[in-house]
């Protein structure tokens, strides 16, 4: 019985190249090479958003959307931003409300926020009741978040994670109460809604770069650099295949 499945060879080659690029970036940064990330307006505005909520005496609302669970990279990326927001809200003694549709995300978020309060030096400002599970039903969750927004009128709303059809419902409700909204998602459809309805939108991998941007952690910055290198390689491959397919339309080496 063969150990290796030959039909998966192209996937293996691409995976190994990707891992090699990531490791190269990690080693480069350990050897002292400097990587910087350009300014991301949505992330730069986090301070202002939390400050605004503190001045107005209203809470900050942060929700990860209905579409994903904790294993999804988008949810992990949103947790990184939550960590930063939790530190700032603890520092300014501003209430942070975190409704979610998944009990595991709720449990992780509680730990993240508790850790954030601890890092800020105010562990007593952690309120477990403000991080809660609503329902796993999409529009039950959307209706509940809308209700919370309408009643508590948060000054700042963070919509970061995997969203589906509920995105515009929440974003428009936030807009109606006059909140500053920072959004980011991996869904291209919902991105369009967020761009129209929100003040700042993290597009594409800006959401995943947040971890490195906010923490300035070298290991994480290196993986962001690795993404850029891989994108360059993909662009090179597409250009080569494009030219080759134009010259020789019957060619198929670039397909698999």
């Amino acid at each position, binding site marked *: 019985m063969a150990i290796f499945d030959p039909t998966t060879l192209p996937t293996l080659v691409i995976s190994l190249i990707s891992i090699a690029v990531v490791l190269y970036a990690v080693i480069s940064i350990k050897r002292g090479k400097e990587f910087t990330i350009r300014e991301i307006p949505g992330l730069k505005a986090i301070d202002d958003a939390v400050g605004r909520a503190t001045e107005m005496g209203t809470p900050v609302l942060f929700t990860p959307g209905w579409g994903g669970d904790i294993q999804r990279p988008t949810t992990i990326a949103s947790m990184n931003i939550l960590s930063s927001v939790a530190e700032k809200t603890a520092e300014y003694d501003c209430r942070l409300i975190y409704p979610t549709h998944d009990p595991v995300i709720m449990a992780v978020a509680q730990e993240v926020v508790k850790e954030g309060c601890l890092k800020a030096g105010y562990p007593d400002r952690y309120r477990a009741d403000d991080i809660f599970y609503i329902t796993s039903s999409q529009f039950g969750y959307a209706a509940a978040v809308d209700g919370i927004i309408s*009643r508590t009128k948060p000054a700042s709303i963070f919509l970061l994670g995997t969203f589906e059809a509920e995105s515009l419902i929440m974003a428009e409700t936030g807009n109606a109460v006059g909140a500053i909204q920072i959004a980011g998602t991996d869904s291209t459809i919902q991105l369009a809604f967020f761009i129209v309805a929100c003040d700042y939108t993290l597009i594409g991998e800006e959401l995943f770069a947040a971890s490195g941007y906010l923490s300035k952690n070298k290991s994480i910055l290196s993986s962001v650099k690795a993404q850029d290198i891989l994108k360059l390689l993909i662009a090179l491959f597409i250009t080569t295949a494009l030219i080759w397919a134009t010259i020789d339309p019957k060619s198929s080496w670039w397909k698999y």
Partner: protein
Amino acid sequence: MRVKIPLAICFLSGAIMFIQYFSRHPLAKAVYNGILDWWQIIFAFTLFVGVAAFIKSGLKSVSWSKARPSTGRKTDAPYKAISLVGLALMPILALAGGTKFGSPFLWVFDNMQAPMQSTVFSLLAFFVASASFRGFRARTIPATILLISALFVLLGRIPVADYFTESLAKATFWIQDYPSMAARRAILIGIGLGSMTTALRVILGIERTYLRGER
């Protein structure tokens, strides 16, 4: 140890799932099927966590103790009460009358839950209208191009377009299939790479947010 053991489990699980994908060996398949089964079992237990957390927070909201004004808990109380009634009612109906065709459970689902959810979904149409009115302004040249494309697509996606000209539907499909798809693919590639590197960071233990908020 508190951090090292979960990191080791994460690394081993990630490595095993990665390696088994490339193998046809019966051992790889057995490991893979075993992990899938355990995945289902673990998920089932998380549902209990969710229900317990919901009941706890609901009961706190509707309790007779004096609510702290800053939490706004009192204003949530009626909604939480209704939610708790619903949470209790549905399993009772399912256990008492079953879930087959014509049962009370299915009746409540078809005549209460489904219409309520559809109602919230239908809000999207109203919000799309108000967002379109607010958002589609020809402030710059790219915004104007976007606006014209939107008008083409809105008209081309309805049968009314056929009464004007067949070219409208063709233009709509062209916009969807070429410029729109190109932009979407570029964003998807970026998102795919971001997801991959985030997953790799989690497996290698560089990313530890899921552990205790540590980065």
